[in-house]
C-alpha cells in the first residue's frame, strides 16, 4: 500500500468512474431504449424509458417465440452445467486419488485436448450430428460438455489439496465401495469448488452462439443468442433500410441478459474470487 494525499486519491477515482461508466453505458442505453418507441429511439438520446417496454416485447414475441427461448436456454444451460460439473469432478477425483498405470500420461492427454480448438472441427461436428440424426436436438449442445478439460484441471488441483486419503481408507474399512465413497464422502466436501465452476460453466453455456446456430434450425427450439439474432434479422437492423423495430430488439436483448445479470449480482464475489484464483478463463 502506498500512502497518497486526498487530492491524489480523488484523481484515481475519476478514471475508475469513467471506466465504470464505459462498462455500464451500453447496458443503460439498452434498458432505456427497450422502454421507448422507435421514433423516440431515433430522435432522443434520453436514458429514461417512457413506459413502452410491454409494447416492444409484444412486437418481439410476434416476430419469434422469445419466452420459449428463455425456457430453451434455461433447459440447455442447466443440463449442460450439471453434467459437465458432475463428470468433471468425477474425472478430476479419479486422477487425483487413484495411482493407476499411465495416470500422468492420461492427464497430459486431457490437457492437450485444450490445444485443439472446437472451431477447427465444427464442419466434422456438424456432419457427425447430422448423420446421427441429432440436428435440432439439444443432445449435441449438452453432452460434449462432459469432456471439459479446463474444469477437470481446476477441480483436480482442488482435489489434490482437499481430499484426505484417510477419509477414503476408513470408509473402505467400513465396507463401502469406491463409487459410494465418492458420492457419500467426497462430493459434499468438493461443493465449494464445484459451485464456482458451475457458475462459469452455466454462463458459458447460456451465451454459446456458434454451436446452437449450426445445430438448431427450428425457431421454437432456438436458445436465446440465436433467437435474438433471429429477431434482429427479421427486422433487418444492419441493412441500409430504415431501422425498424429497434425497441423490440433492445427489449429482446434485455430479456436475454437479465438471467445472467441476476446470477452475476448474486455471485459476483465468487466470480471475481474464482478469477482471482487464476484458474478460470474469462
Amino acid at each position, binding site marked *: 500500500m502506498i500512502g497518497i494525499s486526498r487530492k491524489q486519491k480523488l484523481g484515481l477515482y475519476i478514471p475508475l468512474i469513467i471506466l465504470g461508466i464505459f*462498462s455500464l453505458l451500453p447496458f443503460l442505453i439498452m434498458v432505456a431504449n427497450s422502454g421507448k418507441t422507435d421514433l423516440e429511439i431515433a430522435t432522443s438520446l434520453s436514458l429514461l424509458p417512457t413506459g413502452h417496454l410491454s409494447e416492444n416485447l409484444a412486437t418481439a414475441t410476434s416476430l419469434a417465440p422469445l419466452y420459449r427461448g428463455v425456457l430453451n436456454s434455461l433447459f440447455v444451460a442447466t443440463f449442460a452445467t450439471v453434467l459437465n460439473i458432475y463428470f468433471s469432478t468425477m474425472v478430476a477425483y479419479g486422477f487425483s486419488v487413484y495411482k493407476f498405470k499411465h495416470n500422468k500420461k492420461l492427464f497430459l492427454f486431457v490437457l492437450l485436448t485444450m490445444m485443439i480448438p472446437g472451431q477447427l472441427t465444427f464442419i*466434422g461436428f456438424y456432419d457427425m450430428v447430422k448423420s446421427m440424426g441429432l440436428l435440432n436436438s439439444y443432445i449435441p449442445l449438452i453432452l460434449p460438455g462432459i469432456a471439459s478439460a479446463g474444469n477437470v484441471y481446476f477441480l483436480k488441483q482442488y482435489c489434490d489439496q482437499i481430499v484426505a486419503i484417510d477419509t477414503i481408507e476408513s470408509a473402505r474399512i467400513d465396507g463401502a465401495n469406491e463409487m459410494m465413497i465418492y458420492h457419500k464422502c467426497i462430493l459434499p466436501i468438493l461443493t465449494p469448488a464445484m459451485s464456482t465452476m458451475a457458475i462459469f460453466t452455466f454462463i458459458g453455456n447460456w451465451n454459446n452462439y456458434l454451436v446452437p446456430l449450426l445445430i438448431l434450425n427450428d425457431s421454437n427450439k432456438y436458445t436465446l443468442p440465436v433467437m435474438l439474432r433471429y429477431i434482429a434479422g427479421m427486422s433487418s437492423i444492419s441493412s441500409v433500410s430504415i431501422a425498424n423495430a429497434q425497441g423490440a430488439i433492445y427489449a429482446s436483448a434485455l430479456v436475454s441478459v437479465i438471467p445472467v445479470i441476476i446470477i452475476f449480482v448474486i455471485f459476483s464475489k465468487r466470480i471475481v474470487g474464482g478469477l482471482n484464483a487464476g484458474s478460470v478463463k474469462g
Partner: protein
Amino acid sequence: MKFDKWGYLFIAPFFIAYFIFGLYPAINTFRLAFFQYDMNMPTNNFVGLQYVIRALQDPLVYHGIFNAIKYWAVGTVFVQFTAILVAAVFTFFKIRGTHFFKSIFYLPSVVSSAVVATIFSLFMGYPAGFVNTLIVESGFVDEPIYLLGNPVIIFCLVIFISWWMGYGGTSITAGAGMTSISDELYESAKIDGASFPQIFRKITIPLIWPVLTYMWMTSLIYGLQAFDIQFMLTDSSGGPNGVAQTISMYIYKHGFEVGNVGYASGVSIVFFIVIVVLSIIMLTLLQRREK
C-alpha cells in the same frame, strides 16, 4: 493397490465424451476434405488433396488468418495496457469499493456475444442508431452516416468491443499476479526512497511480465478462432472488402453458405497446420523463457 483400478472407471466419462464429440469430429473434418461433398446433395467423389492444395493457394485463407491475428494483437495491446493500470491502482492504493469496480469492469464479459453484437450494431445503425442520433442532433454532421459500411469504423468497433469485454477479467488476473509479489520488496524499495512510478516500472512490471506474456501467448489460440462478434456485426458477410472476415467465418461461409463441405474442411486443415505451428513456436518461447 487393488483399488487403483477403479480410477479408470472414474476417468472414463471424459475419454468417452471426448472421443465422440471432440476427436471424432476432428478426424471427420480431415476425412471430409478428401471428398467432393455437398451438404444438400451427398455425392461422395474422392478428390484426394485437391481441396487442401486449393486452400493453400487461396489468398482469402491467409487474409482470414492474418485478420484474426490482427484483431487479436491490437485488441490484446489495449486490453493488457488498461488491465495493468487498473490492477496497479487496486493493488497499491486503498480504493473504496474495489470489489464493486472489479465487478462492473468484468460485467461486459459475462454477457453473450450475441447481445453485445446486437446492441452495438443498433448503436451504429443507419440512419437512426444511437451514434447517428448523437452526431446529427449535436450538429456534428448534417446527414446520418452508414457507419457499418466503413471498414475503418468496423475495425475500430471490433477492437473497442474486445477491449470492453476483455480488460476487466485480465485486470483481475494481473492483479492476482501483482499481489503475489512480496511486500518486503516494495517496503525495501520505499525505504530506499523510490517513488511510486519508479517502483511500478522497476519492480512490478518486470515481475508481472512473465504472467502477462503467458496470458498473451495462450490467448493467441483463442484469438485465432475469432468468430462471433465479427460474424454478427457484419451480418455474416465479413463487411466491405471482407475487412472483418476471420478464418473461422471463411470456413463457415464455405461449409454453410456456399455449401462446399469438402473445401471448408480443406481450409480447416490449413488452419489446423497454422495453429500447430504457432503453438510449437509459442511453447518453445515459453520454455526458453523458463530457462
